[in-house]
Structure formats: structure tokens, C-alpha cells
């Protein structure tokens, strides 16, 4: 495979009112994994969009083997060997895997698409990644992890020289991450340059050879991974020395006591989640730990009434209640931040303000509209309190970065003042700074006496904020660990136990 060095020199890009990239230099060497790091809004996405022809640059040049190239369309970028997989997998779930893999280069026979040939091509493409699945089935019927591998297979053509991966591991569990890394090492050995964007710092040290750090559109640091210890890296990314991230000790003593606010007995649904018990007291943070597919999201949704349970009983303040819909759960003072923000959380066309007041307005009913002044005050209070980065409250929430979108959903529920807040992967796909802020927020809410149920795939995070941890495996609650015993190793053991 012929491979090349790709250089970006002096790249600048302005959006109305924002400098997204300011004179950034970066070079991707063949046979290297190059981690591109930075907080949300640092300019990572803009940079890769320019590299892959999705955006035009205002200034600068792109050189391949020293020769300038014009990347004015995604096709042009592909033609010179740059392939990319975006964070939000942009494939079509209703089409078959084979159709997705051959979307704009269907093999033809007598002018008609040859689906047999397409299936063959698809199998070959997946074989390169050591994936063997039924390519005739719709993509949507596979797990997110498989979908991601299909997306990589799609980006990886015979002549690909640079592969850009934007948060490829965000939805993968540990085993799948290992598998992906094995594939990346293989590609690297074949001489590809790999651009790896992630917020998992451990993974950076596992796989990356070289790191470039962006902040506010500028390159603030670059070098071989070995020369950049984690603490220094984090400080580069955040621009200030951060103690919060390191301060990962569990809350002093679980002060949760008294009657449970919420208690769940034998709640379950066939083929979704085996019946389980949970108890939440004021001041509790119950962590839900487990691998991808262990039933974290399912547990959260059953408690919230978002999916239907076919067994079990729920009590709020000791009184039996029926929760058959989110509406009923919300009336009982329960809130829920879903894992899939775009699909289940946000109304992207609506403004930050409207998204924030929505849950409160729902509680008040449609006749008692919050006045413009009230809405304005609530929104601006929350924007300030959670540090949501937006020029004003009337910006459509779809234009915010992932971390800020997550804060908007959190704000929505905090405004409605729930007694129990369920958070499903609250830090997924957001940068280190926002991450730390959200962990701190969870601790603060707990200290203020709210009861929280938090599902997370990051063990360190669970250890950092939980007063108790429920461990899930294969859609079953297998253990509950509480008090001073919460240690990473215990949880790992509970997850791994046969």
C-alpha cells in the first residue's frame, strides 16, 4: 500500500462571530496513530471537516507528500485517500449492511445494481476488519458497536491513506474497544495514518503515537505520546491546573437515611430486564455499572416508566404508585436524562431557553404558560449556574456542542426540581472539562438531598460519585456494593464473575 504524509498548514476558519480555527499546523505521518485532543469547541470537528472536504477553509493549505491539494468536497477528499467516520454514525439503518457499504459505488451488471456482487464486496470490506456478519440484514438490527465497525469499513477503501475516527469508542464496551484497537494496530502496520479523536485519555495512552492538543481554535501542544504525561495533557486541554478530576474520592460518609424516596420491588419486563429491586433515599447516588448491553439503560427506563414493565411494584415515600408513563413519573417528582441526547433528549430546533423550561412547563400544564420574563430568568440562571456556553438563550440548542447540550438537559430537569433524578450516561461524548463539572454537579445535588440513579460505562466515574453501586450483567442485577467498600476492583470482579 502506498502511503503518504498529510500536512495541514496554517489552517484558519471563521464562523459568524466565532474563530473556529486560528492558524493551525498539523502533520499526520504514515504508520502512526495521531490523537487529536481538546475540549468541546476546541476546533477538532471543524479541523476534520476541513480535512474531509465537508467544510471549506478560510486560509491555509493542505499538502499530500508536499503537494498542495484542493479538498472542496467529500468526494475530493476520498479521491486523495482521506476517509472519515464521524461521531454520529451517518449510515442508513433501514438499508442492509451491504447497501450501506456500497452506497455510492454499487457494483453494476448490465446497468443494474448487482446485489450479489454488493454483498460480496461488503463481506470483503468487513473481512479487513475481521468482522463476519450477515450483510443482507438491515444495519439497524445490529448493535451500535457493529454499526460503528461497518462505518469504519465504509470509510476504509483500498486506497485509503488517512483514516479519521471521531470518538470511535464512545459507544463500545471494553472488549469491543480492544478489538477496535487490534484493528487499528493492524492498519497502522500497513502504513495508514490514523487520526484518533477521543475523550478517553487512557485510550490515548494505549494506542496513540503522537498527540496534538487544540484549545479555542489554536494548537496549544503537540508531541510524541511518551513525552506528554497525563496530568500535563489534561492541563493543556483545560488551560488550567485541574484538581477536580484527580479528586476522585467517594463522598465522605453516605448520609442517606430514613424512608426510601423511591423503592422498586421485582420490577422487570420479559426479554428486557430480569426483575430487580432498588431503593433510593434522599442523598443517595446509586450507580448502575455494567458492560454495554448489561441492562443499564433498560433499568433506568423501566423505573421512569419510559418502557413498559410487566411485573413489579414501585413505592414513592412508602406509598404504592403506578408508573406506566413518563408523565406519571414526572408528576411523582422523577426526572430522566437519557443516554441518546439527540434522539430522546433534545428538541434541536427549539432554543436553549425552550429546552430548559420544557419539563417545568409540562408540570404546569399547557394553560399556565411561564411568562417571557420567567422563562428568561430561569434560562439565564441555569446558563450561568451550569456554565452553558451559548451566546444567548435564544440560540437553537442543535448549534451547541455535546457537553453544552447535556448541560441543557440537566438544566431542564433541575428547573423542574425533582426528588429523584435518573441520569443515563451523563458524561458520554463530552470533553474533560464538562465531564468534571458534571461529576461535581452530581455530588452537589446529592449533598443537597436529591436522590440520584446514575448509569455509566466509566467505572472511575461511578466510583467517584456513587454512595452505592448496583452491578448489572446480562440484563440482570447481580450485586449491590455500598459504603466504604466501593472500589473499582470490586465492581470489575462483580461484572466479570461467572
Amino acid at each position, binding site marked *: 500500500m502506498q502511503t503518504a504524509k498529510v500536512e495541514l498548514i496554517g489552517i484558519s476558519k471563521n464562523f459568524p462571530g466565532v474563530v473556529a480555527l486560528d492558524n493551525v499546523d498539523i502533520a499526520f505521518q504514515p504508520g502512526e496513530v495521531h490523537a487529536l485532543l481538546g475540549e468541546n469547541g476546541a476546533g477538532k470537528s471543524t479541523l476534520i471537516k476541513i480535512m474531509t472536504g465537508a467544510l471549506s477553509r478560510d486560509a491555509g493549505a493542505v499538502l499530500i507528500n508536499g503537494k498542495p491539494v484542493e479538498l472542496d468536497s467529500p468526494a475530493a477528499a476520498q479521491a486523495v485517500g482521506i476517509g472519515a467516520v464521524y461521531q454520529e454514525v451517518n449510515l442508513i439503518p433501514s438499508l442492509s449492511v451491504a447497501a450501506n457499504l456500497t452506497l455510492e459505488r454499487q457494483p453494476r451488471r448490465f446497468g443494474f445494481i448487482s446485489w450479489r456482487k454488493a454483498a460480496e464486496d461488503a463481506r470483503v470490506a468487513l473481512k479487513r476488519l475481521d468482522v463476519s456478519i450477515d450483510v443482507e440484514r438491515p444495519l439497524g438490527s445490529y448493535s451500535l458497536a457493529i454499526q460503528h465497525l461497518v462505518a469504519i469499513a465504509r470509510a476504509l477503501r483500498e486506497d485509503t491513506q488517512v483514516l479519521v475516527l471521531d470518538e470511535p469508542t464512545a459507544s463500545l464496551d471494553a472488549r469491543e474497544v480492544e478489538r477496535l484497537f487490534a484493528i487499528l494496530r493492524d492498519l497502522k502496520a500497513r502504513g495508514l495514518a490514523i487520526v484518533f479523536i477521543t475523550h478517553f485519555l487512557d485510550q490515548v495512552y494505549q494506542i496513540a503515537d503522537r498527540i496534538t492538543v487544540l484549545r479555542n481554535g489554536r494548537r496549544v501542544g503537540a508531541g510524541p505520546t511518551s513525552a506528554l504525561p497525563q496530568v500535563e495533557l489534561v492541563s493543556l486541554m483545560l488551560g488550567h491546573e485541574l484538581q477536580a478530576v484527580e479528586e476522585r474520592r467517594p463522598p465522605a460518609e453516605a448520609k442517606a437515611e430514613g424512608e426510601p424516596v423511591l423503592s422498586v420491588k421485582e420490577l422487570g419486563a420479559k426479554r428486557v430486564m430480569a426483575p430487580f429491586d432498588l431503593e433510593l433515599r434522599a442523598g443517595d447516588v446509586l450507580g448502575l455499572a455494567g458492560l454495554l448491553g448489561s441492562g443499564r439503560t433498560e433499568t433506568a427506563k423501566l423505573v421512569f416508566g*419510559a418502557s413498559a414493565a410487566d411485573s413489579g411494584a414501585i413505592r414513592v415515600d412508602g406509598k404504592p404508585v403506578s408508573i406506566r408513563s413518563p408523565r406519571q413519573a414526572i408528576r411523582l417528582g422523577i426526572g430522566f436524562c437519557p443516554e441518546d441526547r439527540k434522539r430522546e*433528549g433534545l428538541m434541536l430546533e427549539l432554543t436553549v431557553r425552550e429546552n430548559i423550561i420544557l419539563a417545568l412547563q409540562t408540570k404546569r400544564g399547557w394553560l399556565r404558560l411561564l411568562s417571557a420574563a420567567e422563562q428568561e430568568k430561569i434560562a439565564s440562571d441555569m446558563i450561568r449556574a451550569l456554565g452553558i456556553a451559548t451566546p444567548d438563550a435564544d440560540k437553537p440548542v442543535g448549534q451547541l456542542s455535546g457537553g453544552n447540550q447535556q448541560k441543557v438537559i440537566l438544566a431542564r430537569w433541575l428547573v423542574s426540581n425533582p426528588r429523584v433524578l435518573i441520569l443515563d450516561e451523563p458524561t458520554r461524548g463530552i470533553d474533560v472539562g464538562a465531564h468534571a463539572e458534571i461529576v461535581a454537579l452530581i455530588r452537589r445535588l446529592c449533598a443537597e438531598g436529591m436522590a440520584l440513579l446514575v448509569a455509566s460505562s466509566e467505572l472511575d466515574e461511578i466510583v467517584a460519585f456513587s454512595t452505592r453501586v448496583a452491578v448489572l450483567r446480562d440484563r440482570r442485577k447481580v450485586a449491590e456494593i455500598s459504603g466504604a467498600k466501593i472500589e473499582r476492583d470490586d465492581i470489575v470482579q462483580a461484572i466479570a464473575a461467572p
Partner: protein
Amino acid sequence: MRLDPPAALQAPTRRPAAAPKFSEWRAFWPLLALALILLVDAFISPGFFTIRLVEGRLYGSLIDILYRGAPTAVVALGMAVVIGARGIDLSVGAVIAIAGAVMTELIHAGMSAPAVLLATLLVSLICGLWNGALVALLDIQPIIATLILMVAGRGVAQMIDAGTIVTFRSDFFSAISTGRLGPAPSRIVVAAAVYALTWAAMRRTALGLFVESVGANAEASRLTGIDAKFVTISTYLISGVAAGIAGVLITSDIRGSDANNAGLWMELDAILAVVLGGASLNGGRVYIFNTLIGVLIIQSLTTSILVSGLPPEYNLIVKAIVVFLCLLLQARPVRQAVSGMIWAKRT
């Protein structure tokens, strides 16, 4: 148009992209399209802008546009709400015919005029309920669900009329549709009242927020506790009643129920008006004022063609071309190019 002088003065000193600030105002492009059409009218028909009082009522082509546009405006306002919740109501034309037939039948049955009006609106409310139930409760796609009533509704109206054009005399209904309130034609007052009610429902209750929320993301709305079924059904109720009101205006206008033709293709004009107003058929936003401008664009176009003396064979093609140009003006690349030209001229 609210123009803040300091902002306008500051604009040029900023970055070029931010300069034509008022072009970012949502109503700017639809208003520009409307202004261009009226400008052409000024050339082809010198008396176009003359408004005078004839026998106590306002008289002139501009008044005609408002007068003729009133039923479409009423229907389009309801359509804007439905589309805001990511629905669509193809049945409005048929509901107009049903309302006309029911109203005519009841007048002939000797019912008092106000009772006829109430009963007619009740029937159109039921039509809306039918659509809403199909969409929200049976989960049928809106375009299919409302297609049922679109096709069957006209048949129902023809059945009520027994296949003929049934005419009637009613001072009450003539007053509503063709009479005047002071110097203003009363149907313009009716349309204005519907506008005010829609605005109040959308902006003075939380219904508008919920409609837009359901339109933007139905699943997220459910998880936020919004009763999406209730919201969806209420949009179709609003659209149904709006079509009923338009049916009363149209039927009273010709003093007869013409089941074959009343409201024919009105659903398309209404959808077009909403789209000309800048809304997306993917829902998420209800633009009430802009929808009204969309209606005025369509109606001023029709009135202009009639006044121009163009042979009727050209009506449709001229209409299609102008609508195409208006939609072109809404397309982002064209907007940017036009903004750029305006900007270049200013510097």
C-alpha cells in the same frame, strides 16, 4: 419592521457575514417576495394600489387580495399548527366542502343561523378529531390518515347535497362572508380574529411550545412528560375548525354549497403558504405571521394574474414560475448570494 438605528450603523464595521442583519429576520425573505410581486403589479396595473370607499366599504385590488385571501389564510393558519407538530392535513379542502354542505342543509332545515354556525363548526371539529385519532391513536402516518378524509369527505359533501349545487339565502351568513364591519369587509375581520386566536393559543398558552416540541422530537417530548397524543389531536382539531370556518366563508360567498368545487386544492395552497412562510415540513416551528405572508404571496399572485389580462392558458405556468422563484429566495445558497449582493452595493 423594527430597525434599530445604532445596530444598523454598527453593522458595516463588523465582519461581512454579520452585516445585513435584517436579512436574518425570519419574515424578511417572505416579505421581500411579496414586495416584489406587488411592485410588478404597480407597473402592470396603475390603479392597483388605489383604495377608496365605495358605498361605505373599502374598495380596491389590495382589499381584494385580503378579501379573497381570507379563507386561505384561515386554513393555512390551522395548517401551520399541524405542520409545526410534524403532521400534515390533506383533508382541509374536503372539510370545507362538508362544512358547506352541512351548513346549507341545516339552513334549509329551518335552523336559526347562529345554531347552524355552531353545528357546522362542531361537524368540522369532529372531522379534525377523526384525523387526530387516526394519527395519534392508531399511529397512521399523517399524509395517509388525512388522505382518507380528503377523498371520502368530498363524497360525503356530495351525498349531503344529493349531487347538486344547493343554494340558499341567509342575511346572517352573507353578513359574515360578504358583508362589512365598518368600512372593512367582515371576512377580513373573521380572518384577523382567527389569526389572533391562533396566536394566543400558540404564544399565550404552552400549547405552542408543546406543538413545536412534539414536532421537533416526539420521543424526547414523551420522555419530558408532554402528552404527545393530546397535542397531536389538538393540532388536527384546530386545523379542522379552521377549515370549517373557511367553509362557512366560501359557501356564504356564493350563497350555495358546491360540493365538487368548494375548497378544491385548498390544502395545497395552505401547505404552500406555510412553506413560503419559511417553515419546514419536518415540523418543530410554527410561524404564524410568516404563514399569513405566504397566503398574501399566493393571493396577490392570483389577483395580479386576473388583473393583468393575461390569457387564462398562462395562469398556471406564471403561478408556478413565481412560486418557484419565491421558494428559490428561501434557499440558503440563494439567500447568501443575494445578501452578498446587497452587502456589496452598500459598501
